């Protein structure tokens, strides 16, 4: 007796032939990015002109360095890896509504875990040692973020606070490891001795080779996409982010899940640390966290909740970062200009949300 109620869903509502085309939907997604980037470059160009430099030359070197030489391309891909992984470290907990500001600490502790095995077990063959180094990196990052997760779920300590504090502790930790545990006295800068041969990620191609951490990252992109979209846990994370109360009422253990999100984020950042050790530096050194934390946050915010967008945005940011150095050389524009442009893109993107809401209403 399952009769449907009232009339079938109002026919006048669905005007035939005017389906929301996928093209239109995609445009709604892409246009704000294009507009924001263009606007950011316009404003950035004005600033460059104001300090008496040539904006065209500056932008040319920023945008082409990555593609003109093999060296630039490889460097861009090598930058893409930690930027993207730190962006995941920020975005995954954000899906459950938690702010992980600790990616650099997790990266450093991950690097420490990786470097420790790489030095202690340096005689082991690569098939054994390299996976150990990478796993150790991920686990160390997970444990480090796990401290914040534990404080958050057990004692309601704000995760922003704890992850930031843990960053500072991690600086001390790697300083201690690099100057007291396995110091490389000849380096002239706090750094550890190199890891064993077997701990290094093999390279692809010649002069310079691309490390296979790039391929590993591509794989991880796919795994994370499937995880968020297809697994129950991924769905639950999105549900918690969308409406915490409703998620609870429907049987999702929200605080456990938020904690898990932080730990997973930490693991990804830790893996980034291990990849930096095994693929780029061959050891751990002070300052290796670079500005990956802030770049990761920028990328994570720019993606506005879309895990799929992260790899592409991270690539764009890597291009800018790599181009920054050559811009300084060729156009005498300070490298900081690039960070300003990145911040401007983010700003315009956030403004575009407001504009879009207005346009959609009318």
């Amino acid at each position, binding site marked *: *007796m*399952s*009769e*449907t*109620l*009232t*009339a*079938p*869903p*109002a*026919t*006048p*509502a*669905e*005007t035939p032939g*005017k*389906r*929301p085309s996928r093209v239109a939907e995609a445009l709604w997604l892409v246009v704000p990015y294009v507009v924001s980037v263009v606007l950011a470059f316009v404003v950035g160009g004005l600033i460059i002109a104001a300090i008496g430099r040539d904006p065209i030359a500056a932008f040319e070197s920023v945008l082409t360095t990555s593609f003109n030489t093999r060296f630039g391309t490889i460097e861009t891909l090598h930058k893409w890896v930690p930027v993207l992984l730190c962006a995941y470290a920020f975005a995954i907990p954000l899906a459950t509504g938690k702010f992980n500001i600790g990616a650099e600490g997790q990266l450093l502790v991950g690097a420490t875990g990786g470097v420790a095995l790489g030095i202690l077990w340096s005689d082991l063959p690569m098939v054994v040692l390299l996976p150990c180094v990478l796993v150790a990196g991920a686990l160390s990052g997970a444990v480090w973020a796990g401290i914040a997760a534990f404080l958050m779920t057990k004692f309601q300590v704000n995760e922003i606070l704890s992850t930031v504090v843990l960053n500072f502790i991690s600086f001390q930790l790697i300083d201690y490891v690099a100057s007291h545990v396995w110091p490389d006295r000849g380096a002239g800068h706090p750094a550890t001795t190199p890891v064993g041969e077997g701990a290094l990620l093999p390279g692809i191609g010649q002069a310079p080779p691309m490390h296979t951490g790039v391929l590993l990252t591509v794989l991880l992109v796919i795994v994370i996409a*499937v995880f968020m*979209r*297809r*697994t*129950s846990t991924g*769905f*639950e994370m*999105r*549900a918690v982010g*969308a*409406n915490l*109360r*409703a*998620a*609870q*009422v*429907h*049987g*999702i*253990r929200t605080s456990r899940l938020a904690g898990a999100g932080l730990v997973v984020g930490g693991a990804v950042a830790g893996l980034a640390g291990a990849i930096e050790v095994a693929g780029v530096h061959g050891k751990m050194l002070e300052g290796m966290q670079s500005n990956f934390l802030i770049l990761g946050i920028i990328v994570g915010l720019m993606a506005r909740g879309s895990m799929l967008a992260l790899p592409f945005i991270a690539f764009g940011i890597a291009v800018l970062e790599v181009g920054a150095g050559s811009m300084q050389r060729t156009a005498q524009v300070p490298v900081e200009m690039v960070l300003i442009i990145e911040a401007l893109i983010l700003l315009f993107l956030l403004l575009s949300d407001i504009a879009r809401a207005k346009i959609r*209403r*009318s």
Partner: protein
Amino acid sequence: MTESPRLEMRGIVKTFGPVTALDAVDLVVGRNEVHGLLGGNGAGKTTLMNVLYGLYRPNAGEVLLDGQPASIGSPKDAIAAGVGMVHQTFLQVDNYTVTENIVLGTDVPGPLRLDLSEAKERIRDLSERFGLTVDPDAVVEELPVGVRQRVEILKALYRGAKLLILDEPTTNLTPQEVDDLFGSMRAMVDDGMSVVLITHKIRETLSVCDRMTVMRDGRRVETIERADTDAEHLAEKMVGSTTDPGAAVDAAALGAVDADKVEEVLSSVGTTTAVAVRDLVVVNDQGHELIQGFGLELREGEIVGIAGVAGNGQVELAEALAGVRPLRAGTVEVTGRSMGGLATSAWLEHGVAYVPEDRHRDGILPTASITENLVLGSQRSDQVRRRGLIDWGAAKQRAVDAIAEFSVRANGPGTLVGDLSGGNIQRVILARAFARQPRMLILHNPTRGLDIGSTRFVYQQVRKATAAGCAVLLISEDLDEVIALSDRVIALYQGSKAGEWQHGSVDAYAVGRSMTGLGEARV
């Protein structure tokens, strides 16, 4: 020349992408008039009023206020033009006082030295004049919904509204509060204002409105004087014909006809006990015991109705029996299994389904699609997963079916639930609950905000579930609904059972007395 009407909307068209929400709608509201705006879920009532209030810009059409063309681009313009609106969900700053909330957003001299004494005087004056009793110094978060609503109305009056829009204001109110509200509305129109009242309840429309406009599917069906119409006529205009079997029962529950015209409902009460609740104690978030020693037995296929005035422990009872709120003391057994202390997910898996009262807060993921919302709660069940992963293709197909079966007015399964009309959101929530084929179903105000057609449909679904052996606990503030639907009625007063009646021997007045603590003896 006759006086021009207070409001005239002509040929208003509003589309959202491919959806035409308003299709050339006209609306005329006279001076000193309470104008009822009726229509099914998704008919376009809220959208029409949002256009008037400047929240949406129409694609076509014009608005005239007091005969003058008005261009209203934002709520600010609307307020300046003398239009005030009270939405169903209020935007209030919880830890501010009533006065601060009312003054918020108006021009006050210097934020640092806020002198509110004058404002307070005006608020007192307004609240006396229109019978909107409220303490200007009370902190908003401590006020019940009914009083918060008065604050919202006062906010509009304080800003000089001549035309007040109330969007389904009565759904959260007790019968007494409804009477008070209608009294205030009368006082307003006597004072020269005009009021637009959006409601699904025909009885309310008939008792307070001077004229009404009925909408259906984004169009205006008819505008009619109170004197020229009756309940049956209005119901017919809203849904079409009302002459099928079973309609009388539901119509009674909706207040469209008298309760004693209703015949007996065939029930499907079994002999096995499905749910046993003993000595239940539940505390609210502040730690107060709002359910005190409550006991209840539900047999398979039985519908037990809990009648009560809001705030007598209904939310706590519902949440405790749904496994969402821990039991302070006592036991709950569902089909023989003791559920106390288990995680919410275990209750869900054991066949307990819950339709919460606060649908926006507890029921939906607003930024997720209908498909995803229907999956919520069963994301770990084998129904939804294939080889460990969620099968979205199948989920989408089920969503398409649910949309058709529950007549959800939406573009498709990908529509975000936050974009649906109030009643359509509830349809999604109900579709989800019934799809679980529950053993125990807890319904808290399930038909609030639903139109007649949807309400009838819900009743049919409930009966279908009981025929399959599901035990139903119907917690509702709508006494007519409880009496019409339940095999047994329990009155809840201050967290305890204050009376119990079998179907057929229910005396509405006795239930009413027990609900308000005036019953003879506790059972």
